[in-house]
C-alpha cells in the first residue's frame, strides 16, 4: 500500500505549569492514510482531532511515537519545509489565516515562501483561484468576502503550493450553510483530482461524504472504517456525545419499526431512491 501519511503509536501531551500533569491529547494513535484517499476525522471537542492534524503538519511534534509524511519523519528538521509543502493545512477561522489584504497576493504567499520563480507563481495563483472559483474576486480585499469565499481563498493558498495532501481542520465550522456547501464542493473536487484529503469536522453530513471515517474519542481512535461500517454503530457513536448523519438516524428508526434498510445507505439520495423503489 502507498501511504502518504503514516502515524505510528503517536502520543502527544500538552505541557502545563510545573506542578500540573501534562494533558494527554493523543494516546497511542496509529493511523495510515492512503495516497489519494478522502478521510474524515470526527470527534467531540477535546477528542484530539485538531492536535492530530497539527502533528501531521509538524506544527506540533510527537511526545512519543513517529509521524511520517511521504516517508519523512516530522521530527527531521531538514525536511520540515518539504513536509509542510506536501501536507498543506487549512484552519478553522477564515479571518485569521489570510496574510495579505489582496486575494491574489495572499494565494501567492505560500509559493513565494517556497522560493518559486515569479512567472510560475503567477501561473499557480491563477490556476488555484480558478480551481476554487474565485478568479473574479482576485483583486478584492479578503474582509469584503463572505466566510465561504475566504475559506476558498485559504484553500487556494494551499493548493498553490502543489501539496499532495490537504489537511482541513474544521474548515466549515464558522460558515453558514451556503458557505459550507461551497467549501465541501471544492474539497470533493480536489479529491477527484487526486489530492489526498484529510477532513477534520464535527458535521456528520460532511463525514458521510468521505471514503473513510475515523472517530476520535479522548485521544483514541474509537471507530475506523467506511462511513457505512462506522455509522452502523449508531448507538455507540451517540454514547460518545456525537450525532450520526440524519439519514443514518432515519434508517435506524425505520429498522426499529421493522422496516429493513440496507446498512450501506448513508446519503440522502440513496435513501430517497431506496424508499421510492421499495414502496412504489
Amino acid at each position, binding site marked *: 500500500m502507498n501511504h502518504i501519511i503514516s502515524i505510528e503509536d503517536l502520543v502527544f501531551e500538552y505541557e502545563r505549569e510545573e506542578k500540573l500533569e501534562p494533558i494527554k491529547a493523543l494516546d497511542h494513535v496509529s493511523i495510515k492514510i492512503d495516497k489519494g484517499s478522502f478521510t474524515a476525522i470526527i470527534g467531540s471537542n477535546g477528542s484530539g482531532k485538531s492536535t492530530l492534524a497539527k502533528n501531521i503538519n509538524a506544527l506540533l511534534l510527537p511526545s512519543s511515537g513517529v509521524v511520517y509524511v511521504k516517508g519523512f519523519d516530522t521530527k527531521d528538521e531538514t525536511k520540515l519545509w518539504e513536509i509542510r509543502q506536501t501536507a498543506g493545512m487549512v484552519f478553522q477561522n477564515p479571518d485569521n489565516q489570510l496574510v495579505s489584504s489582496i486575494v491574489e497576493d495572499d494565494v501567492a504567499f505560500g509559493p513565494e515562501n517556497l522560493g518559486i520563480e515569479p512567472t510560475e507563481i503567477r501561473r499557480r495563483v491563477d490556476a488555484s483561484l480558478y480551481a476554487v472559483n474565485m478568479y473574479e474576486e482576485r483583486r478584492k480585499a479578503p474582509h469584503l468576502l463572505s466566510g465561504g469565499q475566504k475559506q476558498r481563498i*485559504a484553500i487556494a493558498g494551499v493548493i498553490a503550493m502543489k501539496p499532495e495532501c490537504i489537511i482541513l481542520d474544521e474548515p466549515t465550522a464558522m460558515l453558514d450553510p451556503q458557505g459550507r456547501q461551497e467549501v465541501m464542493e471544492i474539497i470533493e473536487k480536489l479529491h477527484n483530482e487526486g489530492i489526498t484529503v484529510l477532513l477534520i469536522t464535527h458535521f456528520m453530513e460532511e463525514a458521510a461524504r468521505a471514503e473513510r471515517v475515523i472517530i476520535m474519542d479522548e485521544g483514541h481512535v474509537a471507530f475506523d472504517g467506511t462511513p457505512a461500517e462506522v455509522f452502523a454503530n449508531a448507538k455507540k457513536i451517540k454514547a460518545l456525545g456525537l450525532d450520526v448523519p440524519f439519514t443514518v438516524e432515519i434508517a435506524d428508526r425505520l429498522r426499529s419499526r421493522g422496516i429493513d434498510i440496507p446498512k450501506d445507505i448513508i446519503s440522502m439520495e440513496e435513501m430517497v431512491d431506496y424508499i421510492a423503489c421499495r414502496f412504489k
Partner: protein
Amino acid sequence: MIRDITLGQYYPGDSWFHRLDARVKIIWTFIYIVSLFLIRDFWGYVIVLVTLALIIGISRVPLNFILKGLKPIFLIIIFTFVINMFMTKGTPLIEIGFLTITKEGLRNAFFMGTRLVLLIIGSSILTLITKPIQLTDGIEKLLSPLQKFGLPSHELAMMMTIALRFIPTLLEETDKIMKAQMARGADFESGNIMRRAKSLIPLLVPLFISAFRIAQDLAMAMEARCYRGGSHRTRMNGMRLRKRDGVAALLIILYLTLIIVQAQGILSLLMMSVIQLIQAA
C-alpha cells in the same frame, strides 16, 4: 467613526499613478510632506493644490472618498485653527472680551489648517493609489540598504502588511465586543471623560486578548504555509523601474524646484509683477 479612516485604505484602479513603482510614490509623498513645511505663502499652496488636483484627477479616486478621511481629524483641524487664530500676537482685527483675533493669527490659522488638511490628503492618496503589498514591498526595498546596519527591513515590511490586513478584522472584533458589552449593560456614551475612559476598559481588555489569539492563529497559519523569514522568498510581482517611473522622478524634481524657488520668494515676486503688469494694462 473609526470606519471612516481612509488612511491605509486602497482604492483599486489602473491609472498612470496606480501603476507607478511604489518606491517612487513613497519618495514623492515624503518630498510632498517636507514641501508642505517649506512653503510660506499663498502661491506655495497653489502649487501644492494644483499638483494634488492633477494626481487626484488622473488617478480617478473620488474626491468625497478622500475627504471622508478628513472626518476623524476634523476636531484637530478646528482646534489648530482656533488656537492659532487667538494665540498669535500682532495687529488686532477684532476683539471679543479678552480674546483678540489678529491679522497674523488669522493668517497663521488659515495656513496651519490648510497644511494639516493637505498633509492628510497627500498621505492618504499614497495608500489609496498603491496596493498595500506594493507599499510594504517598496518600504522594504527602500530600507534594505539599512539591513547592513542591522535594520530588519523584511520583518518590518511583513509587520506592516499584516497590520494593514488586520485593521478591518480588528475593527469588526471591536464592534462585536462593544455590542456584547452593551448587551450586558455597558455604557460607552455617557458621563465625563474619566468615566468614558474607564468604560473603555471592558472593551480594550477583550480586544487585546483577541488580538493575541488572532496573532497566534496567524503565526501558525503562516508557518504551515512555509513562512521562514525573508531570505528564501521570491515575489510574484517583482519590482522593476519602468519608463514612467523615470518620468515621475522628473516631475518630482520639477515639483521640488518649484517649491524651493517659491519658498525663496522668487515665484511670488514674479507673480506679483505679472499681476501688477495686468493691473497696469
